[in-house]
């Protein structure tokens, strides 16, 4: 009887683990190559860190969605919470209020925004890291190119 109960419990646990793993896979958009890398990364022993070396192809470790900061910079989103209120100067606050963003607590309706990004103006730095940090392609030495929206795909207006 006890053995039977233990077997049943083991089967239930296995089913629950498989289900939660499947849900995690389904919920998280992934690049095909990343899936493979993540399997490797899940290996228990991590290799030592190479000294003075940040070359390589980097991806948000918790999936591509982790780099998307739709409501503003990840650490200080524009969500109305007091702890996320930025330390504006009067000019800073005035300038912020003149910006009509499509996201965040002050979002305006499409058609009323004045965000230059939506007209395909250069997103520039640091917004490329503060907005949509996706796969950073190679490189080596002192060169780092990220793959923000608009590089690999077009957000540009049609002529």
């Amino acid at each position, binding site marked *: 009887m006890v053995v039977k109960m233990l077997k049943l419990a083991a089967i239930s646990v296995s089913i629950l683990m498989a289900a939660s793993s499947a849900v995690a896979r389904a919920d998280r958009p992934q690049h095909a190559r990343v899936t493979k890398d993540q399997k490797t990364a899940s290996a228990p022993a991590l290799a030592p860190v190479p000294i003075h070396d940040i070359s390589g192809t980097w991806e948000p470790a918790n999936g591509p969605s982790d780099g998307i900061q739709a409501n503003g910079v990840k650490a200080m989103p524009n969500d109305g919470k007091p702890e996320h209120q930025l330390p504006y100067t009067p000019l800073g606050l005035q300038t912020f209020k003149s910006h009509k963003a499509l996201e965040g607590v002050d979002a305006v309706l499409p058609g009323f925004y004045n965000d230059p990004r939506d007209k395909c*103006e250069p997103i520039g730095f640091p917004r490329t890291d503060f907005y949509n940090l996706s796969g950073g392609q190679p490189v*080596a030495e002192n060169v780092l190119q990220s793959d923000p929206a608009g590089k690999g795909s*077009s957000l540009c207006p049609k002529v």
Partner: protein
Amino acid sequence: MPKGLVTMAVALVAVSVFSVLARAQDVPRQPGAVYDMDRKGENPAPAPKRDLTGVWEPAQGPSAGVQATGAGAMPSDGKPEHELPFTPLGRETFLAHKPTFGVTQVPSALTNDPMPGCNPQGFPRVVLHNFRTSRIVQTPENVVILYEFNKKWRVIWTDGRRLPKNPTEPTWGDPDPPESRWWGYSVGKWVDDYTFVAESTGFDDRTWLDNAGRPHSDALHVIEQYHRPDRDHLEMTITVDDAKMFTKPWVAVKLRLRLQAPSFDIREMECAPIETEEYNKEFAEPAAGIDAR
């Protein structure tokens, strides 16, 4: 008399040297760049083997990479020798394009060139329109080219993978649905110690080949050759092959590049709609007779 002749000869030499220098100074330059005209009579060191790394600039000055009237080796200038081997579809598509340069040019305000609206110009147009200073980086798996023009970059894989017959092949990821790319899919290899050849396919056919509105289809296949004859030079040759648009492959550009110092800082050159808008208002619309009021 001989003294007078000598004086005259010296004066002539001085004038010639001065005018050569003056001409050299007149050539547009990237600040801090070195061109072949600055190093006449040089004897460059031998090329390193299998190495394209560095910052490269057109060797004759930045203007040498600007191909306003179409691909440098085959400009749209009406000359019979520059007539492209169009298929009927190729000619029809070319004539549907309204470029602002070349023999079929229209005023800027009437163009249907996707680029002034800052749509991606893609590859190979980046090198067939405005090849500016570019940095090449090599890793064990790929060659990366960072282009000044529009601040774009490409990856040419050298890890042994083949061009995708179908972009869903595992080595290229698993896009859903299969996607064409503005910049194509590229692979490359060394054919000898000083010559690197890359091939690219899988292009989005909404881009133009060049500034003169030369078209391409989704069957476009581009062959790039980079030959390094010595340490300081790289010879870039781009060949276009597209059986839907052209009856045979054709060489679109041959450009000699010069290596710059490792400290050379590449300027920014980015497409910005707000600047295009200002340009149209200031120049394009008045030139086309459009009254903005």
